[in-house]
């Protein structure tokens, strides 16, 4: 769904075997970075579903909103790259909360909507909300692609493959954030409540925890995750408001592939998707890069609807 890094690195014409080995290494490195980004993007999506049963179709819009905010702020000498990126993540959190308070919570609490139909209403509502964000971004900042200056400049050679340092930094940040999330969920009290809520919401309520504050926490975490993923994406590949639909679709497919609500499944699926796309783009043609994943998705959903590591 996302274009390859623009810096196409052609290996000098050596012997074919070496060329092939270098291509393999390049796919390995590029695929790793892209997959890490996919993993971070999909983690928030699956977390929200796991805890509150919400499939947030404005996911891509929140990512791009954070990215565009970082782009606009980083361009201002007052803020600079680092503060701009940080504030961009902040905007991601704000938009995530807006999504929750304006769209999701009113539907969850509505008496006019039957319980069985809430899921579909949330899907439709967040979809519309995503379109609104997309149009607002396009109106304020045009739909041209935007690239944020990377946190770290420069290029490094890994066994002869020239790799932008930013690519490695991106992967490192993604994995650190995912690691922090793991610590939060498994090692802190608030995180354990969150985990419990995803397993049995009613049980958590009976133990005296306020479910609505659990939801607030999970939406805050979600906003941070989506914000970071969006800003990193803007540094790595660039974002545009037209790319919002495909972004949501790829997060959705990764999450379904891994199993709805399963974070570890999403991480595994992100790597499967990232590598299949990268291999297709390098070995066959960039034009076909999404097709094998779509076919795989259809196959998995037919044969194993609960996904690779799904609970149900």
């Amino acid at each position, binding site marked *: 769904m996302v274009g390859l890094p623009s810096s196409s690195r052609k290996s000098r014409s050596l012997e074919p075997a070496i060329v092939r080995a270098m291509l393999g290494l390049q796919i390995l490195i590029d695929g790793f970075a892209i997959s890490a980004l996919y993993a971070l993007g999909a983690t928030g999506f699956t977390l929200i579903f796991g805890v509150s049963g919400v499939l947030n179709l404005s996911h891509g819009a929140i990512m791009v909103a954070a990215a565009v905010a970082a782009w606009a702020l980083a361009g201002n000498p007052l803020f600079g790259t680092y503060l701009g990126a940080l504030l961009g993540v902040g905007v991601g959190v704000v938009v995530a909360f807006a999504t929750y308070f304006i769209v999701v919570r009113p539907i969850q609490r509505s008496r006019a909507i039957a319980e069985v139909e809430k*899921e579909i209403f949330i899907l439709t509502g967040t979809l519309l909300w995503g379109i609104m964000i997309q149009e607002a971004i396009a109106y304020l900042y045009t739909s041209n692609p935007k690239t944020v200056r990377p946190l770290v400049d420069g290029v490094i050679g890994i066994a002869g493959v020239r790799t932008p340092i930013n690519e490695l930094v991106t992967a490192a940040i993604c994995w650190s954030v995912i690691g922090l999330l793991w610590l939060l969920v498994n090692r802190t009290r608030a995180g354990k409540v969150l985990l419990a809520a995803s397993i049995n919401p009613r049980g958590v309520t009976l133990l005296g925890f306020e479910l609505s504050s659990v939801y607030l926490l999970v939406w805050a975490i979600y906003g941070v995750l989506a914000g970071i993923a969006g800003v990193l994406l803007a540094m790595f590949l660039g974002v545009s408001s037209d790319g919002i639909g495909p972004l949501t679709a790829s997060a959705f*497919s990764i999450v379904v592939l891994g199993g709805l609500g399963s974070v570890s499944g999403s991480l595994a699926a992100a790597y499967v998707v990232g590598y299949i796309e990268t291999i297709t783009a390098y070995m066959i043609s960039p034009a076909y890069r999404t097709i094998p994943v779509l076919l795989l998705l259809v196959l998995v959903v037919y044969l194993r609807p609960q996904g690779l590591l799904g609970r149900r």
Partner: protein
Amino acid sequence: MIALRAITRSRLVWISLLIVAIAATLPLYVSAYILGLLTLAYYFGVFAMAWDLLFGFAGEVNFGPTFLIGLGAYTAGILNSRYGLSIPVCVVAGAAAAVAGGVLLALPALRLRGPYFGLITLVAVLLLQNMIVIFASVTGGEIGMTVTDVLSIDETENYEYALLFMALSGAILFGLSRSPIGLILQASGQDPIEAAALGFNVAKHKLAAFCVSALFSGLAGALLIFYLGTASVGTVVDISVGVQVIIAAVLGGRRTILGGAIGAVFLIVAGEVLRPLGELSTFVVSAVALAVILFFPAGLLGMLMRGREMR
């Protein structure tokens, strides 16, 4: 027979007939430009009504109405532009292709729950879009293709065709939804296990719903391109077109069938009225649709009916 009597007694039907009759006289006093807009809206109305049969009644979240529409449109378009077949043959072939696509979608729908099936329909659209771009020599790729024949070059005639088509489709879909079959569909959508326990063949009814929905989507898609004279991804396949169809159906009122037509006309007219806002018009339309969902979940028609005679 009971169903028939209930239909003739329903006030909604008579009001609808009156509105269609008034709409038929519009060419006498409005400009060709407005007629063109409404023609488009009527085809969209059929898309939305066909979608409502699946969503409102069978309870299937179909994010990819454009998969069925696009299949119908492109099949008809390719047969016409490459093989020179006449319009009726092309339209029938397009509808047949859409029904085949509907059966293809129905198979996973019978096994999967809400979000999973929704994703499959989304993937179906993306795959179709990819195929159209890859086989650009046949389909015209991203630019689209021109069909050789058109329905008519006269705006009034085009308008009357579209109105007639929408009225007939609406009547059939509405009749179906009020028939025992519609009730069984509704039951299987809400609680498939109980419906099956009552002795209804859920799979058979859902499959039928998919076929009927696909039939009308395909017909409308094929007719639409013979009205426009071109078929392109942006007009009949793109996900944003599907989103418009969904918005129209939800806006008009789920589970009302006729609401879809109202929603489609409202959407297209609103888009036109808001044109001075430029890029913001889509924003406003989405905001209005969101507000309707949040505050009037039953939709425009549902709000008017207030459940008095609809149930």
